């Protein structure tokens, strides 16, 4: 027996017991399957859809006054799904929005398929529903049926099959059709949902109004990831969703994408600051992927925010005319210089007492940029890679000094100083500031030590 076969047999395990059970079932003529209760399956399906969020910013601009709309949000499915998720202990404050989003996403896909020529085979769907119904009923006796119906779901089985299950089959048919008839101009889920909600905004708004559902926060559709940049082409970067990818594996770009190892992301601004091998944190639109599943389709997720984690863990250091540059930034630079380099994912902190600054831009407590009169007055990085910095320090040929747990690099020309401090917990903090005599207690002593 070959090794592959042995391995597969090990994983499959001994089927003797299963075979005997099967034999009993067949020989006794019991056409009973151990099919799972379809309710949770459908719930899972809708929850999955609900996780995929979409934008609803049109509502923030006010309601449209479109003409009569033949679309109506299916209230029955909405109520049912909401109730299921509540019973499941989901107490998210945006639960109602999630449920509606998931429902509209499914309807949008069906609508999109129809706009491309798909026509629903109602008879076939009806037959499939009937088949499921028969299978389901054959597995349960009356007592069980009543108990489940009353206690668990709160809807009749007829309603479940004729409304909920039918709807899931409608969606499955539409998705299959789209897979088989991919349009030349493939739209993303985001685009399809946007089109749908614009087309039916009045009906949807009416429904939200009726149910008291608040407007959607566009941030719902965003996801975050930390990864490594593997390649860059124009406005697009290829990112592997992991941080330990160094060096870049010896695979072609196509192989990496095919293997699901990396995905392309489109970045609209400041892409020049990003280079391969950098580590990056992305916030992207999770629905900006194509509606059809086509082999080798290149997916471009649209990035809304990003920051280079690399810049903080391993900031570059350079010196020009006595000015130190930490990852391309030096003292005196503007806010926009910082944002251009590190992205817009900062918080503005005005509690910066003792620093002599007026405010600071804080990047997740890992990097802080202090400003005085709109000029960068101090830079501070925490959790810097110790080995990386030790190497930088070793290679630096200008004025430098070492004490027990600190390293100093100093420019006499500009009085700029980089201080690296090893914290007892093992992390390293580095900061860049001006070491004015009156702001630095042991200035003269330090300067003498440097000169020695």
């Amino acid at each position: 027996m070959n090794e592959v076969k042995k391995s597969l047999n090990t994983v499959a395990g001994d089927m003797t017991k299963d075979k005997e059970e099967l034999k009993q079932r067949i020989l006794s003529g019991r056409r009973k399957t151990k099919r799972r209760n379809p309710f949770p399956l459908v719930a899972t399906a809708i929850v999955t859809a609900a996780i995929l969020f979409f934008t609803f910013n049109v509502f923030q601009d006010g309601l449209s006054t479109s003409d009569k709309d033949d679309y109506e949000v299916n209230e029955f499915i909405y109520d049912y799904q909401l109730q299921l998720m509540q019973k499941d202990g989901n107490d998210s404050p945006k639960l109602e929005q999630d449920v509606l989003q998931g429902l509209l996403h499914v309807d949008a896909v069906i609508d999109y398929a129809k706009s491309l020529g798909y026509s629903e085979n109602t008879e076939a769907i009806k037959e499939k529903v009937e088949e499921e119904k028969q299978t389901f009923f054959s597995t349960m006796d009356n007592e069980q049926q009543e108990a489940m119906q009353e206690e668990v779901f709160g809807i009749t089985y007829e309603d479940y099959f004729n409304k909920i299950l039918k709807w899931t089959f409608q969606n499955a048919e539409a998705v299959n059709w789209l897979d088989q008839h991919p349009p030349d101009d493939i739209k993303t889920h985001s685009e399809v949902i946007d089109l749908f909600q614009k087309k039916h905004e009045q009906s949807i708004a009416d429904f939200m109004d009726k149910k008291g559902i608040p407007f959607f926060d566009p941030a719902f559709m965003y996801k975050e990831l930390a990864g490594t940049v593997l390649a860059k082409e124009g406005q697009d970067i290829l990112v592997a969703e992991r941080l330990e990818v160094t060096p870049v594996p010896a695979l072609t770009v196509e192989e990496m994408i095919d293997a699901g190892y990396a995905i392309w992301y489109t970045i609209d601004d400041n892409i020049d600051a990003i280079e391969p091998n950098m580590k990056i944190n992305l916030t992207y639109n999770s629905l900006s992927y194509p509606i059809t599943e086509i082999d080798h389709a290149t997916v471009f997720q649209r990035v809304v925010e990003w920051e280079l984690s690399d810049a903080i863990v391993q900031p570059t250091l350079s010196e020009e005319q006595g000015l130190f540059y930490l990852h391309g930034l030096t003292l005196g630079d503007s806010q926009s210089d910082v944002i251009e380099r590190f992205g817009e994912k900062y918080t503005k902190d005005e509690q910066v007492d003792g620093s002599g600054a007026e405010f600071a831009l804080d990047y997740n407590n890992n990097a802080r940029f202090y400003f005085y009169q709109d000029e960068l007055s101090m830079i501070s990085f925490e959790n810097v890679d110790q080995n990386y910095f030790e190497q930088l320090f070793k290679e630096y040929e200008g004025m430098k000094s070492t004490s027990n747990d600190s390293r100093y690099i100093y420019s006499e020309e500009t009085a700029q100083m980089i201080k690296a401090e090893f914290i007892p917990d093992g992390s390293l903090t580095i900061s860049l500031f001006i070491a004015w005599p009156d702001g630095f207690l042991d200035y003269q002593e330090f300067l003498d030590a440097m000169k020695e």
Partner: protein
Amino acid sequence: MDSGKMEEIIDEHGAHLLKMAYFYLRDRELAKDIVQEVFFAFYDSSKYEEQGKLRAYLTRLTVNRCKDHLRSWSFRNLSFSKEWIETIQREQDPLILNEEKTDIAIAIMKLPIKYREIIIFYYYEEYKMREIATLLGLSENTVKARMVKARKLLKIDLQADYWEVLSIE
């Protein structure tokens, strides 16, 4: 067909079909349901004499039903990616479940179905490329292309020595 004959057929092919269905569905209970349906369909039709080798015929029925199931809404929307590996660990005797032995199979089971089935038929069923093409209704070139891709995907997931096993055989 009398029940004695049916029992004989289940004894001979049941375990094999259960394994095949499991390789497609990665779910033991579901595999049982599918194979049960296959035997019922077979029992009702009793046309196996016309179908050539019984094992191949039943395998084809099983594969088709598994694929039908994989296309269904409920299956498409369930995430088994981690669960089925946990199920393997739970259901199998840990003493028997030698991690080294299962690495190759788990990597295969993680493949998308269109690549997984080629590997299963080639290495597990020991079919030739042409036979796989006939059974799955594909061209021989498609089967070969998928085999190349499947091996590439496995290479990423497997350590070098396991990968060699696939390259040699």
